[in-house]
């Protein structure tokens, strides 16, 4: 089977400082990959390199495109990459404000990707937006309200709806539950798990919260100082960590 995404030797330096170094893995359709590690370990750098927000200094990010099969997205033209970003790829930011248009209604936020790919029927766009608000447990009566009037948890759910409405084949998420209250986190996690299962989403989720990957990720990579120190099936890594750093990470969480 062709991997949906094949990440090969990704390295990103900030001057002499290592952002991430020589990271590689394959992601197969329907798989969720978790990337964990403490703050500063290079998770976001790696994610942004994969998602086309940063240009890596070395390496390839090969995506199995609909039309041309596997293509290195690092070297493809910017128009092609931006097209991927608004069709087959989706990116959920840690801070909902970074991923939403705060001056646009909830319906407009969800509808934007539909309009970006050429939908021109207002009634259809609105119906799809309303349907998606329901799927992320936002009341349909809020469709014309701006996200500024939403709670943090609602904003994050709106950002997810906005990303998933066009049925992307690959979703990148950077700390999707970060910065939210614990009870709100639990609800969001539940929702995400449901969506991942129902839609058979392929996703790469970066988090420092092991509970998130325990619930969502099939496989796990543990990062430290920009390097992957351990990778494997989620349960295996969490229940029987091999690397000393992974053991520390798991045990410190168990204490919480």
């Amino acid at each position: 089977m062709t991997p949906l995404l094949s990440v090969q030797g990704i390295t990103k330096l900030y001057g002499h400082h290592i952002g991430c170094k020589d990271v590689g893995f394959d992601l197969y359709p329907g798989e969720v990959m978790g990337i964990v590690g403490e703050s500063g370990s290079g998770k976001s750098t790696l994610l942004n390199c994969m998602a086309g927000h940063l240009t890596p200094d070395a390496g390839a990010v090969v995506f199995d495109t609909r039309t041309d099969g596997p293509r290195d997205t690092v070297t493809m033209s910017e128009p092609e990459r931006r097209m991927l970003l608004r069709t087959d790829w989706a990116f959920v930011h840690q801070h909902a404000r970074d991923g939403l248009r705060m001056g646009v209604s909830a319906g407009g936020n969800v509808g934007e990707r539909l309009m970006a790919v050429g939908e021109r029927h207002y009634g259809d766009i609105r119906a799809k937006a309303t349907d998606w608000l329901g799927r992320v447990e936002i009341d349909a009566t809020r469709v014309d309200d701006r996200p500024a009037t939403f709670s943090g948890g609602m904003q994050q759910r709106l950002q997810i709806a906005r990303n998933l409405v066009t049925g992307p084949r690959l979703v990148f998420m950077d700390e999707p539950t970060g910065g939210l209250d614990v009870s709100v986190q639990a609800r969001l996690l539940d929702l995400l798990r449901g969506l991942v299962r129902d839609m058979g989403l392929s996703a790469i989720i970066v988090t420092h919260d092991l509970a998130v990957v325990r619930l969502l990720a099939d496989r796990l990579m543990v990062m430290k100082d920009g390097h992957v120190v351990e990778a494997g099936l989620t349960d295996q890594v969490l229940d029987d960590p091999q690397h000393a750093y992974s053991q520390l990470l798991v045990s410190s969480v168990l204490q919480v």
Partner: protein
Amino acid sequence: MSEYNFAYLDEQTKRMIRRAILKGLAIPGYQVPFASREMPMPYGWGTGGVQVSAAVMTPDDRFKVIDQGADDTTNAVSIRTFFERTAGVATTTTTSDATVIQTRHRIPEEPLSEGQILVYQVPIPEPLRFLEPRESETRKMHSLEEYGLMHVKLYEDISRHGHIATSYDYPVKVEGRYVMDPSPIPKFDNPKLGNVAAIQLFGAGREQRIYALPPYTQVVSLDFEDHPFEASKPDHPCVMCGAENSYLDEVITDDTGGRMFVCSDTDFCEARQAAGHIGTMNGKDAA
């Protein structure tokens, strides 16, 4: 007049502006950056339009200035006087007699002909500005034809008002490629942008942009399938000339809510009256 070069700007500057205009004509709807000059009038008084007019003007031209359809507002008079003084060109208020027409907020009712140039004063040339303030990003969106945001703006309009309430500055797509801001003309004028015999030039002074529509360019107003574009106007005839299909200004006649509708295009209205078309109010006045 002798202290100035013809039409105020020096020849070097005019050449620079003409290059921008030619590039604009070659890529209809594309915003060409140009080095806008200080003009002896404040921005907002149409310095972009004035520079474009100066660059295209020849001693043989007949110049007309319209401001919201009228030739006699302070703004229109001052720009007309400026070119009378600095270029010594003939001026006119008759649309069909003019060779260069500078305008703010209107397109003349009378169809333009080949050989005429219509110069628009533009305050904000970037149609995507409303939703994307970053210039670097809007430039990329134009170059990659990422125009979904324009429809987000129209979507918001419908969700808030039940219909597309944008009535000025209504965005258009040019030759199926660039989305363009037609300047704050009423959307009633949008159909007059396309397939026109005259050259249309747009100048934004403060924002330092020029864009253009060569003759007979295809210009389409953006819309939704279930909310098609409509070139609406107040549903009344002009009380002065009886015109049914011209854009009307609403004039308040007293402080008890009395109002009437008059052609916004003064020259058009006067020409119709001179030709014997009389509106309801006009008859009473004459009596």
